């Protein structure tokens, strides 16, 4: 489904953000990308939809080599990669509904979207998605009236209305409280399962990642240090990813919280 082959990014300053990243993600799999700030997590997901151009290596989505596409091909393929940003990436002055429909921008011309002449099936789909993410009642609210968690739900609906094959998710919970963070992570994972979507989620919070995903990839200095199930994140592994620290606390706390979460 998604294949990365020796993906490398060197910034003009000489900083090596990614070094020979090779991995494969089958459809339906949700992968958490962890690592310290500056490890290359954001660069990696942006190299896939080419918001950042990789220096060498390949990214292949269903037999299409993304890294070799010209601008027209890239436009077409970007539709198949829904991106979810930190909560603030909504057009503040538009309504929830308009924000969701803007996800169809790559499909319909902009003048049509200006005058809100979206095809009826797009509008129907937008209502279905808003219902699914629990915001049906908010469809006509302005985006800047929403709470952080609600905004992120709009972002999710907008990414999904693109009808993507792959979700690229950049720090979805970075500015959310712990409870909302879990709800958002749960929603993303459920939706990926329902729609058989692959997803890469950049995330700071190791505990949160362990709670919801089936596979974790750890990056340090742009190099993959760990690739495996969340149970494999032992203190030793976390030390190779993040450096020396006492990890027992972190992991134990996770297990307890996780249990409570499952019970509730």
């Amino acid at each position, binding site marked *: 489904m998604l294949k990365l082959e020796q993906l490398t990014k060197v910034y003009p300053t000489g900083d090596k953000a990614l070094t020979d990243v090779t991995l494969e993600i089958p459809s339906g799999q949700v992968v958490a990308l962890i690592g310290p700030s500056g490890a290359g997590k954001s660069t990696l997901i942006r190299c896939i939809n080419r918001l950042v151009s990789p220096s060498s290596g390949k990214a292949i989505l269903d037999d299409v080599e993304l890294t070799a596409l010209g601008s027209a091909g890239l436009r077409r393929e970007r539709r198949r990669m829904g991106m979810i940003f930190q909560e603030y990436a909504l057009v503040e002055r538009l309504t929830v509904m308009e924000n969701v429909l803007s996800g169809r*921008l790559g499909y319909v011309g902009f003048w049509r979207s200006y005058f809100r002449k979206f095809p009826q099936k797009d509008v129907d789909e937008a209502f279905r998605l808003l219902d699914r993410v629990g915001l049906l009642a908010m469809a006509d609210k302005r985006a800047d009236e929403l709470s952080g968690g609600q905004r992120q739900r709009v972002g999710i609906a907008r990414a999904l209305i693109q009808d993507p094959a792959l979700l690229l998710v950049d720090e979805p919970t970075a500015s959310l409280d712990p409870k909302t963070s879990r709800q958002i992570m749960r929603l993303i994972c459920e939706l990926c399962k329902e729609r058989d979507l692959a997803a890469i989620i950049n995330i700071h919070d190791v505990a949160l990642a362990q709670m919801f995903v089936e596979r974790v990839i750890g990056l340090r200095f742009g190099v993959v240090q760990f690739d495996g199930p969340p149970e494999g994140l032992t203190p030793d592994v976390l030390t190779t990813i993040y450096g020396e620290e006492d990890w027992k606390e972190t992991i134990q706390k996770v297990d307890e919280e996780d249990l409570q979460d499952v019970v509730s």
Partner: protein
Amino acid sequence: MQDIQAAFLAAFNLIVSLDADLFEIVGLSLTVTLSAVAISCLLGFPLGALLAISRFPGRGMIVVFISSLMGLPPVVVGLTVYLFLSSAGPLGSWQMLYTPTAMIIAQTLLVTPIVAALTRQIIEDLNGEYSELLRSMSARRRDILSTLLWDARYSLITASLAGMGRALAEVGAVMIVGGNINHVTRVMTTAIALETSKGELALALGLGIILVLLSISINAALMSLRTNMERFAYA
């Protein structure tokens, strides 16, 4: 003190007597300035927005150049337009010197850099927020431009107001290319300059008061338009 009292009295008299000359002058002032601002917005909004989202060698220099044009002395602009339009100049055959059209051209040259420079700043800030989102959604360049201009529309009203203030208040450019000809190219600012030099201080001050009131009401009208548009848009 007496002069000031006389000025208010003169202004009051001019207004209540519906003085025909006065309304002609005010009308011409408004026509020239509003036309110049409208043309400047048509040129300056897209130019500023394009500059905001483009990256090319020499862009920084253009940005600095346009910003510095914001401070162009009106008399220099007037002189340049004069040179082009005078009968010996390259556009002399158009016979436009000392017409309202020449005044509109001069004011457009003064106002466009202001609108373009402010638009560039406004759109660049907004683009910082939207850029990745729009690109990830496969938006085309013109989609990006129109989204940003549309979303910044209320801030852009302020940019056009800044340009309007400049055009309505300046005297140098319209004096040089218009010539302050009675019933043809006399506007509020040139009339004030003339009355002052004739020693008609009360009348000059009276005109000045009307000019200030006019400026305030145009600003107020556009501001309330902005508020109403926002309310309407999000009702």
